[in-house]
């Protein structure tokens, strides 16, 4: 295996809201340039875990590092592209106005801004809808626009919370092709999902259930170790073993 440098490391991260434990002693390393999938049922703590990385949430205990620097740090935030589970868009503005607003938050302006907007909209196949108001967009289109916004400033790490919900299979395939392209350029992608077949496309997977990381490995490793043929079965084995 080639030498990979560490991109994200999570050390003993726990999080509780009042008495409810959401994350329990998570330890995880993610390498540069890989597509890492966090797989688990809803309510397992996937969103809470990725929010720990974006600096939007602070752990009750434990630390998280990005490129060996402790989070949260405003400097590091610029190297993250975050797409939240809900489409954080201004519905009363057009797609273009949304893109212009978010890109100027990252300091993109003038010609570079125009070029990047064209590039990301091409990638999510929304180039023809730039002038339309977001309130007229379908659910899938909003999802794609959110993705486009996360890509605007060419982040080194992409954190995508359920990016392909409500997107049809054809488009989902083309979005995954875009992920592979980004990966080739050295972008690290962390993606949460509860769709098993999508999990199979990731380089490595983390299975998460009830706030615990129950297994980490490549899809093939996970299947091999549990003597199963699908990730779903592997998940069941790990989930049952943990009980």
């Amino acid at each position: 295996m080639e030498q990979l440098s560490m991109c994200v490391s999570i050390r003993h991260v726990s999080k509780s809201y009042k008495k409810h434990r959401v994350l329990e002693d998570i330890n995880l390393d993610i390498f540069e340039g890989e597509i890492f999938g966090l797989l688990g049922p809803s309510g397992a703590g996937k969103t809470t875990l990725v929010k720990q990385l974006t600096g939007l949430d602070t752990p009750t205990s434990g630390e998280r590092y990005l490129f060996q620097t402790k989070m949260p740090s405003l400097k590091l935030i610029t190297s993250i592209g975050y797409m939240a589970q809900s489409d954080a868009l201004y519905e009363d503005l057009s797609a273009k106005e949304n893109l212009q607003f978010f890109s100027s938050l990252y300091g993109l302006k003038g010609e570079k801004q125009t070029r990047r907007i064209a590039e990301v909209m091409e990638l999510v196949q929304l180039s023809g809808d730039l002038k339309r108001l977001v309130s007229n967009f379908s659910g899938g289109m909003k999802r794609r626009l959110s993705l486009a916004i996360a890509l605007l400033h060419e982040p080194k790490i992409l954190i995508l919370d359920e990016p392909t919900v409500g997107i049809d299979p054809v488009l989902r395939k083309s979005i995954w092709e875009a992920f592979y392209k980004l990966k080739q350029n050295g972008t690290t992608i962390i993606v949460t999902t509860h769709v098993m077949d999508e999990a199979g496309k990731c380089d490595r997977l983390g299975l998460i259930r009830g706030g615990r990381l129950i297994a980490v490995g490549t899809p093939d490793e996970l299947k091999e170790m549990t003597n199963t043929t699908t990730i779903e079965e592997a998940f069941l084995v790990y989930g049952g073993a943990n009980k």
Partner: protein
Amino acid sequence: MRVFALTQRILRQIVRDKRTMGLLIIAPILVLTMLHLVFNGGDYTPKIGFVDVPTAVVEQMNVEGADITTYSDEKSAKADLADRMIDGYLTFANNAPTVVLEGSDPSVAGATMKWLQQAMPTGQEIGHSPKLTIDYLHGSSDMGTFDYFGPVLLGFFVFFFVFLIAGVSFLRERTTGTLERLLASPLRKWEIVMGYVVGFGIFTMIQSAIIAAYAIYVLGMMMEGAFGYVLLITLLLALTALTLGILLSSFANNELQMMQFIPIIVVPQIFFSGLFNLDTISKWLSWVGPFTPLYYAADALRDIMVRGYGWGAIYMDIFALAGFSLLFIAINILALRKYRKI
């Protein structure tokens, strides 16, 4: 630069929402116009009954400005009073004048008494005492209630609408997840608050200039001082409304809960704004006044518009309003720590 991006976005959103923009400008204009018509409709003409008033007295009375009905006996006058045909009657039982009032509406009773007092001949006054001349330090004899209420209402509308619109728009930012998205970007917390302050500040400047100009130049609201000062005060008041609205929006989960702040936060301020005499407010309550922004704004606006004063009279109010804004801005920035520690 990032503050400017936020400002530009907010202004775009306001301009895009034609209905809200209309509400912010047309609604105050409409209400002020109605108030103007309500208060400047002329004086109330009391309806008064005379029962057995000696002819000598009637001849001496100045009966202008009232509808007089003459009754032959007190019984029929009483019946008309009960039917509210007349507001009161004057009777000369035992040669001493007695007035009986209907009395259910204090303002009608007051107008009736006022008329009777000026109409009744006092005997020795005629020809003896010199005519009293009245001079005004401020205002004039034809200054109406509208002129006195006007400055307060001007301030109130600016406060009310800016509080609501800014609060709801920040609430939406939170509930739609865009606030979180902003905090996932390198935007600093103070930049978010400042973006809002500048964006809504620009809009409020335009809004209050239009409303104030309409009230003063179209409705003829009394205006003794400088227009620039009026704008300065309304802008400062709008900033406190804005920063307070943003602050309170974090305690609301939806638009309806934002509305619930109106009777708690906005309406009580009217009591301390000088619409009612501040000296007669119960001591248990009067200490609240200095903690409400409208108290200072109304005081300053009245000093400018009615009394024609300038900087010397209003600078304390300006400091108080600026102080409120700065305090709320600081709390807002601290409150955003809930979402991101840095």
